[in-house]
């Protein structure tokens, strides 16, 4: 793996560890208020300082990272699952089904992602009525992000399946009497797994980015949850007097995005030689 790839892996690994170890690293609970230390700048007791309610910023960043990563991983899993089925059907069946399915997703390209995500979150938060209140918005956001992500995956899978369909080993399987569903699952899918993995590696930062944007403008994650996006949003309001509140959430977001991008590039170089 290249040096860039290792830098990416280190960044991602460090941030994951921080998000998982959470409060233990900071030594404070993310929601423990301490008015005496409100808006305090970084010091040796509170390494990254405190927010307006005297909550430790490091602990809040760990907690926010957990939410951001959870939403991003959920969205990516969804995008991959739906995109895989949609793209495989489109590519394998071809003809009118293919034309219909592909025209269907083209509409999404006519709208900015943020706009689609915001509208979907509002609708889904309602449609998910039976879920407990606390989780509803989180799930809605993950589903909305997965929905905008699946289009790219579907296009990729379709192209790969179209390509694989013409290969001689598919012809051989067909000639030996294998059912189409078996060919698709046992022969085609394992062969397109590598590029899919690479696309997944790029889906995660895309989801983190989109979530942080909608949360930053106040239409994403809402209390009692916080994410890197909401922390940046809170920090932005106070940045004139207390720049530490905006600087550290931004570093966390930028670090994770850079890390995932570098890792994705390294994965692509290693796994996806045909495209290089």
């Amino acid at each position, binding site marked *: 793996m290249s040096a860039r790839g290792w830098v990416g892996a280190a960044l991602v690994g460090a941030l994951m560890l921080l998000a998982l170890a959470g409060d233990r690293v900071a030594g404070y609970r993310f929601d423990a208020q301490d008015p005496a230390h409100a808006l305090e700048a970084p010091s040796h007791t509170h390494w990254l300082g405190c927010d307006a309610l005297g909550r430790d910023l490091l602990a809040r960043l760990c907690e926010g990272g957990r939410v951001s990563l959870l939403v991003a991983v959920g969205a990516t899993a969804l995008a991959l699952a739906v995109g895989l089925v949609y793209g495989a059907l489109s590519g394998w069946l071809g003809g009118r089904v293919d034309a219909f399915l592909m025209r269907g997703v083209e509409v999404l390209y006519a709208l900015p992602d943020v706009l689609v995500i915001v509208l979907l979150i509002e609708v889904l938060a309602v449609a998910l009525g039976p879920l407990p209140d606390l989780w509803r918005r989180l799930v809605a956001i993950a589903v909305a992000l997965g929905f905008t992500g699946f289009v790219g995956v579907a296009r990729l899978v379709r192209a790969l399946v179209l390509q694989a369909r013409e290969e001689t080993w598919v012809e051989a399987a067909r000639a030996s009497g294998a059912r189409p569903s078996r060919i698709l699952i046992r022969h085609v899918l394992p062969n397109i797994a590598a590029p899919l993995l690479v696309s997944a590696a790029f889906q995660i930062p895309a989801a983190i980015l989109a979530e942080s*944007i909608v949360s930053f403008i106040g239409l994403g994650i809402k209390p009692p949850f916080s994410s890197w996006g909401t922390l940046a949003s809170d920090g932005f309001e106070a940045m004139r007097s207390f720049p530490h509140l905006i600087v550290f959430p931004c570093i966390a977001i930028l670090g994770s995005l850079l890390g995932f991008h570098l890792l994705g590039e390294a994965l692509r170089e290693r796994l996806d030689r045909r495209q290089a």
Partner: protein
Amino acid sequence: MIRYTLGRVLAGLLVVWVVATLTFLLLRFLPGGPFDKERSLPPEIMRNLAHRYALDRPLGAQYLDYLARLARGDLGPSYKYVGRDVADILRDAVPVSLELGALAFALAVSGGIALGLAAGARRGRIVDRLVTLGSLVGVSAPSFVIGAGLILVFGLFLRWLPAGLWEGPLYAVLPALTLAALPTAYAAQLTRAQVGAVMDQDYVRTARALGVPEARVRRRHVLRNALLAVMTYSGPLLANLLTGSFVVEHIYAVPGMGRYFVSAVANRDYPLVLGVTLVYAALVVLANLAVDLSYAWLDPRIRVGSPSE
């Protein structure tokens, strides 16, 4: 070319119609109206309000009515800004967003191509390394991170530029820079890769072998082909600019479409949300149309093929 153009225009109109229908349906199924307040109003007032805004009619009738008014350019009254039409609000907001977007687009294309050419021509040298690193950060960073950084440095620390509002050319500098960061980085990456690929082409070697001066080779062959690649991506690039405008307009309190969209969603101001969504769709469709047509004009191979491809 006429056949091709017509096909593209029709496809674009279809997309706008589908978007109009989808958003209409989506928003009608959202519960909680704009008139839900903490203190509930008497039922007869609610009925009057619903009647005033035609919310008590069947959905199909509302939809047809909506389409008919849309065809006349009437987007209905805003629920939140009493006494103002959505079309009226958009007339003020759209030019602001377009101005910001155009400024950022010009910055991104010129800056991105210049950086990409500089890096591509001197591979492995310090310029190349700096551009590569900078563009990696540029494509990764969310616009609010760039915006916060620019405000901290130029707005609060150096105090050179205003960090908000929209009251003159100086006020456009930071928003335009913030908005342009991502597409600039993207265009630089594209151009750099393209320059590298074109330099290895047979026709460049032939031109050099024939004794064509290096500057002319660069201008006629390398630059032109690199431009073509950036142009293909300027459609998505423009869409990126529009997407970014939500955050940038929010950060700098620029009274454009993005900011109205954000507050309209929060206020459940359905007609305004619909209006902004439609304008976005129309703009993206128009941008893609312009790119497709100019590309077809530049590269004859495209317009010879059928428009459905």
